């Protein structure tokens, strides 16, 4: 049915609740995409601000979560566009060479996987994290990122293949730089 599903008072409250409850999940996703807590937090705030201001654009209550993550994705694109650090998302690889103190084997494993994820091109990183962390279906990811389902599947495939390779061949911690950098891959 067409029209804004959050028109009445109770619906508006439901919308605000949805937005409020999504904050931590959006932050986790923004962190997984950027590996930068400060940037992730800024992106989430912008996302919530835009969501609250543009809630009339949401036509289908069932699509609210995908809509929120789409706004988050667009905020990240806007950020990179403003920074002029990339020409397109396809060209982007986020390289996170941060070297947190190793506290435990578990932490080492977590850091190793995060480093591997951060080395993926952003589109692959986004697909993998939306599927694995949010449990989104391929169709929902396609809707969120505004790409065909086939693209979702191929990005997932390449991304997971790359992760397998990264996780087999991880350089020793001492060889890594300390900064988080963005690289253009072309």
């Amino acid at each position, binding site marked *: 049915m067409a029209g804004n599903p959050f028109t009445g008072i109770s619906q508006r409250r439901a919308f605000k609740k949805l937005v409020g409850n999504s*904050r931590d999940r959006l932050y986790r996703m923004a962190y997984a995409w950027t590996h930068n*807590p400060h940037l992730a937090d800024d992106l*989430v*705030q912008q996302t919530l*601000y835009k969501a609250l201001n543009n809630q009339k654009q949401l036509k289908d209550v069932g699509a609210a979560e995908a809509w929120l993550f789409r706004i988050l994705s667009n905020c990240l694109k806007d950020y990179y566009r403003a920074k002029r650090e990339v020409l397109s998302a396809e060209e982007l690889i986020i390289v996170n060479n941060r070297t947190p103190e190793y506290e435990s084997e578990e932490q080492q494993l977590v850091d190793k*996987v995060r480093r591997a994820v951060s080395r993926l091109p952003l589109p692959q990183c986004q697909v993998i994290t939306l599927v694995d*962390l949010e449990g989104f279906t391929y169709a929902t990811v396609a809707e969120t990122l505004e790409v065909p389902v086939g693209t979702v*599947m191929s990005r997932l*495939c390449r991304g997971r293949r790359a*992760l397998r390779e990264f996780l087999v061949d991880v350089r020793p911690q001492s060889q890594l730089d300390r900064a988080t950098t963005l690289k253009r891959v072309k």
Partner: protein
Amino acid sequence: MNKDEHFSEEQLNAFVDGELDPEEKSQLFNESERSAKLDQRLCKQRKIKELVQHAYEDVPPARRLGGTPLARTGLFGKTIAAGFFLAVGLSAGVVAHNYFDPGLRGELVAANAAAEQAVEIENYLLHVVSGKPEQMLAALEQARFLLESTDEDEFRQVEIIANEQGLNLLRTDVTPFAEEISALQRRNVVFYACSKTIQRLEERGVKVELVPYTNPDYTALDRVVTRMQAGWKYEKI
């Protein structure tokens, strides 16, 4: 061709992601029972998925410049009205009691009580971004108008947040409206100075001194989002 090679990597991904239909899923289950190699491929795919999930179970907290946003505390709606003023009252007592004169402290206590008994009325967050004195004055006059447009038994909260050039409104050395601000504070208008703008100025070597009782603990964006989530009206001036 081995049987397991009938299954593409995309199919294996679809299997571990629960995207296969029941028939395909059964077929893959049966084949993996017969083929150790296929079973191993499936395990590898599942392992990658589980590693990613494990790596982001706990992410580092956001390095906020200000305090924890109210949205995370789950305080919405009218609870904010009472809780926020209670927080202001407590902060006033603990942090700045040396500065408060007894009269103002009494007014804050009265405000807390009023907030608790408040009838439902729209609260306002006014956002000042311009450094032009006429814009600043417009914000102050709007706050005054909002307070005066309520009935006696109504209690309206009004907050003013200033950032970018608008921060000049709240800087002691540049504001032309210190007296007006003080008068509004006595009527329970709360002023916020954007923590991010302050940080940027200080990074440029500017010493930022704020008018008394200004809260510097939030970014403007954070304050706008949390107040809008709480149902407040928002006006950018």
